[in-house]
């Protein structure tokens, strides 16, 4: 596909369930980012991958959040034992960026997670 895709687009989970959110970046994009956007807020950085290496996970709110990108392409954000405060839109973005240069980030449509 031409852009970043995310699945599922909507996810409803009962509190305590585990969820897995998928991101397919633009082919050839080295960098991949996850952001969390709560209602009425701007996106907040969660974690960053360069190829398969997770170089920054400082934004992950707790150890219940885990992200991986094992082959340097598709990425999965996993949330264990979901809580109501995890309800948000989870955005994935990719870019060509390598260290020393800046390229814009292209965002997917997001996954809206609702925890009941």
């Amino acid at each position, binding site marked *: 596909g031409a852009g970043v895709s995310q699945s599922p687009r909507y996810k409803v989970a009962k509190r305590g369930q585990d969820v897995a959110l998928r991101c397919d970046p633009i082919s050839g994009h080295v960098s991949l*980012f996850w952001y969390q956007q709560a209602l009425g807020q*701007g*996106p*907040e*950085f969660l974690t960053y991958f360069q190829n398969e290496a997770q170089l920054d996970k400082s934004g992950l709110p707790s150890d219940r959040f885990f992200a991986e990108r094992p082959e340097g392409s598709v990425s999965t954000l996993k949330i264990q034992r979901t809580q109501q405060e995890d309800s948000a839109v989870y955005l994935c*973005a990719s870019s060509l960026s390598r260290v020393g240069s800046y390229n*814009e980030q292209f965002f997917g449509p997001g996954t809206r997670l609702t925890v009941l």
Partner: protein
Amino acid sequence: DQQVKQNSPSLSVQEGRISILNCDYTNSMFDYFLWYKKYPAEGPTFLISISSIKDKNEDGRFTVFLNKSAKHLSLHIVPSQPGDSAVYFCAASDTSNSGYALNFGKGTSLLVTP
């Protein structure tokens, strides 16, 4: 702690007039600034950016101004069109940090009326 602030949650402008969206930041390490546009149920779409070595960047109807001493940037849309109605996010990055993660404001909802 919000490092990028958009103090106007909403703005209404008549078609054909200028729209001015404002953004302030607190982190002096930010050296790259972007504006994203977002429609409902879609991800943010890149609009325009500016490096801290410049004070103005123009792309068609969109111009971004940067005032580093005031830690302030603004987006001008001239002339405004109804299709410009969306939420606009200001974002900033410290490119000395690996990855260039973006720090976003809360957004300004722009409504352009016919």
